[in-house]
């Protein structure tokens, strides 16, 4: 799931349908909209109360074409609806040119689309989990709707878990999971910012691993709701990972000791772990770090004072001239903890509580102000 970055400060929210669809019965629409809100109140302490007059938190309108917000609807098909995140008001607009239906496989199911849009109204962005309600594509009418665990995690990251009973409950609520023993804030990364590994996923997200926990990194800090347990984010993967990278095939590789694991997204890609010596011939066990360098698409592995360059398309994949001294990377220290080529094109090396920004053009650590190495806690984890 993805959080947009804003949420409502109150849990008792109000809404109003100020413009109903042309072709549906109003009472039925009221019922479907309430049901759609209940998708979210089933798993949180949020409540949604319909009102007949303004002011309300969430205004709902069925509109066609240009409707005053500069984002016109496009007729039947294409865009079905859009909604505003809490910071922008939370309103939800539905394209009234669609053939909206209730409890029918024909047309576009109002309940499902409304539940999705209200997810935006509450602060959720689109999820890259295909089965999630918050995936951007309409998946067709599902007669037995069930909120995906990804959506549940998302909404509970914003508003916490439900503490009371009641509310609309279309399916049995999932059994309560044992609460993971994780801190409620990110202070740990501020006091001890040393990480095991950091890597990008194929969708551009950046994650840092430390022990048995992982952190999603936002533009300048740790995302809300983190840390989480690695075993929950990547089922089957142990903690204390040595190194990780996502290759251009979209698959993410994790290394620990003499083993490695391959994942497609969050799913293990078959029978893993396997031996590094089998899948990555020429690469040593107990790595410090690894990264894919965009300049040539090759994989670089780091350990102690040495590095190895691995090209899966070549035989042997590691040239006989490797390993080479890490001092070839001017300014980068030995025995690094983690390495990453970031979305801005720079390559970053992490060691202890500091990091180094490596410039591929000069092939050296950048001469900058403030100088490198810089404190990781401030620049990556948002600590003061």
């Amino acid at each position: 799931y993805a959080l947009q970055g804003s949420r409502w400060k109150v849990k008792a929210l109000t809404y109003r349908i100020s413009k109903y669809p042309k072709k549906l019965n109003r009472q039925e629409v009221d019922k479907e909209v309430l049901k759609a809100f209940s998708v979210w109140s089933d798993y949180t302490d949020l409540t949604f109360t319909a009102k007949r007059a303004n002011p309300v938190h969430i205004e709902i309108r069925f509109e066609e074409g240009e409707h005053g917000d500069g984002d016109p609807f496009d007729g039947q098909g294409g865009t079905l609806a859009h909604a505003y995140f809490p910071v922008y008001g939370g309103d939800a607009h539905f394209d009234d040119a669609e053939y909206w239906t209730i409890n029918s496989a024909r047309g576009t199911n109002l309940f499902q689309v409304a539940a999705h849009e209200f997810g935006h109204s509450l602060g959720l962005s689109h999820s890259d989990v295909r089965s999630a309600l918050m995936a951007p594509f309409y998946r067709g009418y599902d007669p037995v709707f069930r909120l995906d665990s990804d959506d549940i995690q998302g909404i509970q990251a914003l508003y916490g878990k439900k503490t009371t009973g009641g509310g609309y409950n279309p399916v049995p609520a999932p059994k309560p999971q044992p609460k993971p023993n994780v801190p409620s804030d990110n202070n740990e990364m501020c006091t001890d910012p040393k990480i095991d590994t950091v890597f990008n996923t194929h969708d551009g997200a950046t994650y840092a691993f430390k022990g048995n926990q992982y952190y999603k990194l936002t533009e300048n800090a740790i995302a809300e709701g983190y840390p989480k347990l690695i075993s929950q984010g990547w089922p089957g993967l142990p903690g204390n990972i040595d190194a990780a990278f996502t290759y251009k095939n979209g698959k993410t590789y994790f290394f620990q000791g003499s083993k490695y694991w391959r994942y497609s997204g969050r799913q293990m890609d078959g029978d893993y772990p396997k031996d590094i010596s089998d899948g990555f011939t020429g690469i040593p066990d107990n790595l410090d770090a690894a990264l894919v360098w965009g300049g040539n698409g090759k994989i670089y592995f780091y350990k102690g004072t040495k590095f190895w360059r691995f090209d899966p398309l070549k035989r042997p994949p590691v040239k006989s001239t490797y390993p080479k001294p890490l001092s070839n990377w001017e300014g980068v220290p030995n025995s690094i903890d983690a390495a990453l080529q970031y979305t801005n094109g720079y390559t970053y090396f992490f060691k202890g509580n500091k990091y180094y920004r490596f410039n591929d053009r000069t092939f050296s650590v950048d001469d900058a102000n403030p100088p490198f190495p810089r404190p990781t806690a401030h620049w990556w984890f948002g600590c003061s």
Partner: protein
Amino acid sequence: APVQKTTQAEIYLSQFGYLPPSARNPANGGLLDSSTWSKAIMDFQGFAGVNVTGELDEETMELMALPRCGVKDKVGFGTDSRSKR
């Protein structure tokens, strides 16, 4: 036709934040360098969970034709707020 296919994809990728809004502005010619174009397609493919090829293959075009929510997948194209690192 390939031109139509590319145009449709360009509009789609602009609409949902994978390309800068100016890319669909006919007034500026909308000329994109190939790496920006490929990256936009790859970003979309990665997000949508199909093979990340950077090409407008059939699967990608089918996905772009699906009805969907109008909220942008990516916000703040071109933002350089990460550069302080």
